[in-house]
């Protein structure tokens, strides 16, 4: 009897040891998500310079006369998103998702919107997620659709991706605002 107990303890500790490094690995992975300081000025300057260079290629590719204003705006948006994703250095899922499929994102968005409207009548209650309130589940699903590449993430990972994505978006807005102000100021000076 006493000989059995230490075996049980050792197997339990082995099981704990086997599960602990997995937990540690997951926690370590989650900590690495916040390594990009989206709020720092240096990061914004890096993003602005990359964006400016990317936009210069866009200017050279398109003729100076405006082809179609809606498509040009979308191209700028896609360029900005791609540069933002590359600035993230691939540590987050949303950045990898943006870099993986730049062309299909907009078409997929429209398609998925239609698909989702058809399937709202089907409630999904798996035994694992029953603990979350269905209200929170619905909102989490909406959030998962908004953040690129995060539709099938677990709830805590989704929250992490969302925090990083929001900081990145704020930086993108700041950088693009500064760039537009620069271009408006530069245009008026050149004409005078």
């Amino acid at each position, binding site marked *: 009897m006493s000989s059995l107990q230490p075996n049980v303890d050792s197997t339990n500790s082995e099981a704990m040891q086997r599960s602990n490094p997995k*937990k540690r690995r997951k926690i370590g992975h989650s900590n690495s998500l916040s390594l990009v300081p989206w709020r720092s000025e240096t990061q914004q300057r890096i993003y602005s310079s990359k964006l400016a260079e990317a*936009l210069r290629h866009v200017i050279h590719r*398109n003729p100076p006369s405006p082809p179609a*204003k809606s498509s040009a705006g979308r191209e700028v948006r896609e360029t900005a998103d791609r540069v933002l994703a590359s600035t993230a250095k691939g540590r987050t899922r949303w950045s990898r998702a943006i870099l993986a499929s730049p062309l299909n994102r907009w078409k997929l968005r429209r398609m998925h919107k239609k698909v989702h409207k058809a399937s709202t009548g089907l409630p999904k209650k798996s035994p694992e997620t029953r603990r979350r309130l269905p209200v929170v589940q619905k909102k989490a699903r909406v959030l998962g659709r908004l953040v690129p590449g995060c539709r099938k993430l677990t709830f805590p990972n989704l*929250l992490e991706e969302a*925090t990083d994505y929001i900081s990145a978006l704020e930086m993108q807005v700041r950088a693009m605002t500064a760039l537009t102000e620069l271009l408006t100021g*530069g245009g008026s000076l050149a004409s005078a």
Partner: protein
Amino acid sequence: MSSRRSSSGAPTSAGMTDAQITDLVSKLQQLIPQLRSTHSDKVSAAKVLQETCSYIKTLHREVDDLSDRLSQLLANTDSNTAQAAIIRSLLM
């Protein structure tokens, strides 16, 4: 198996504890300007998620507007002034 379940509490996804999830929710709440000023204890997770969704939509719309304006500016200004402005932004 039973020990693992008891250590994690209720069956949560990804093996994370509820406390960590609440921590993430509060971190998210700090980012959103609408919820930052309100007392952080009394905001439910559903409200935080909803405000997060609307804030992300707002940011998306802002980026769309800015990119439209940028595309118009880039098309209207000739290449010389555009490149000069871009070089200026690089130096700054």
